[in-house]
């Protein structure tokens, strides 16, 4: 098997695995000096400052993590290429919003890069969600954080002190329903959330 494929597979497996494996892999990516240097170098050579490069690294990791967990990576490029595609897309989007949709230099963005727009949650919707999250209590937040990170229901049951995975799943759905119920009962939040 090709070495690149093998190492990419290993990384995907970790990123889609339990919280421990996922965080170890993300930490390795995020703290990798060579990758940081490449990302910052790219941003600096495309009109940004070092701080923009740091931001790009952080935001790209967040999108990368979400995409991998959501099975969005199709394997048509290497993971490295995919990660860099996200960095380019993020920088392009940021620049586009800065220059207010004015002309954009084509060399700043490869039009073939995939858009990640649809996976992003608008700030307005996030704000409504955050208000609802304030209502559900720490226990529910912990359960949903773990579930959102693909942690198994067995582990969630363990952490939340529930009998088994079935009880954990029921509780997790109950927590989610509390979010919906709170937003449903508040027309302003409902509108903010785009519902």
């Amino acid at each position, binding site marked *: 098997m090709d070495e690149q494929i093998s190492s990419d597979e290993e990384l995907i497996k970790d990123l889609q695995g339990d919280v421990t494996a996922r965080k170890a892999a993300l930490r390795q990516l995020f703290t990798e000096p060579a990758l940081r240097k490449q990302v910052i170098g790219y941003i600096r050579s495309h009109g940004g400052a070092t701080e923009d490069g740091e931001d790009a690294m952080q935001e790209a990791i967040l999108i990368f993590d979400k995409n991998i967990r959501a099975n969005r990576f199709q394997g048509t490029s290497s993971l490295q290429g995919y990660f860099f595609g996200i960095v380019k897309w993020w920088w392009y989007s940021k620049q586009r919003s800065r220059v207010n949709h004015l002309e954009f230099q084509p060399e700043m963005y490869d039009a073939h890069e995939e858009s990640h727009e649809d996976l992003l949650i608008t700030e307005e919707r996030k704000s409504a969600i955050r208000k609802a999250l304030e209502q559900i209590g720490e226990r529910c937040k912990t359960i949903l954080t773990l579930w959102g990170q693909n942690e198994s229901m067995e582990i969630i049951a*363990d952490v939340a002190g529930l009998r088994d995975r079935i009880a954990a799943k029921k509780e997790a759905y109950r927590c989610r329903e509390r979010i919906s119920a709170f937003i449903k009962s508040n027309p302003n939040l409902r509108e903010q959330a785009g519902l």
Partner: protein
Amino acid sequence: MEELRDKLEDYLSGKLGAAEKKALEQQLASDPALQEMLRWQKLERDAMDVLAEDDLRNDLLEWKKGLPANKSPKIVPIWSRYTIAIAAAVALILSIWWWTKPTTDVTIGPRTAQNQPVVPKTSPQASIDTPSIKPHTNPEKPIVNTPKALSSRYLALAESNYDALRNSINAPQVRGSKPEKDSTLSATQILKQDGFAAFNKAEYKACIGKLSKVPATDKGYFTTMEYLGHAYFRTKEFKKAAATFQMVYEQNLPLSTDRARWYYLLAMLADGKEDSASFKTNLNLLANDPSRDYSQQAQKLLEKLAPQR
């Protein structure tokens, strides 16, 4: 209803097969109630994403603190790190002696000449944690994981296990107290109030300063000690963290024993005491008894440690 909810969940997470997806989309097109249900489920999933993102942002901030400032590292392709890790894992077989050598006894103190492992003289380049490492190509000198490299892997393993639940650890408020200083509180309660508040503000040194002064006669002493253990862990004082968690689990209190035992294990691992009899005994105790709290985490840790040894 539950089945439909699970199906929508699979649809949203891209887990439905092509035929099922098409069928569901056809159903959705003609069923407004189902569309409404999907919209709310999408909102709930977005909420989970917001939580996961916030959690990861906290981690990124934490990890960023450990990065060297303004250093220009040598360029080594990131993706080769995994390849190197695989090569190193193979090489670990050659260093099996590390695991099979006689165990040292339980000591939460500095390694002495007696319990210090015999360190084979290998190149520091053998460490998988050194960014500038090049694959070792001399067949007569295979890559061997040095104890230093293993220690840093154990530290990473301990910290990633710890980080998995980091954000669920929040210190309580002292019962009956208000956020501001309350003149009716005793000196011990004030120490605890200030210590817990410092913990929740991530001011761990200040937290240690307060909680370490709480007298053992206090009613909630061992709960307080758990937070002190966490504060030590978060300031990387792993020896003290291990000693503190050990003191708690040795009390055999119904709710905290296994939890304290688990964090004792992580502190021992981070401190490079993975070879001690106490570490092995406690890890096996949790891993082999599914009725215990943290048993699954211990099993996973055991599995992860096995190939590294």
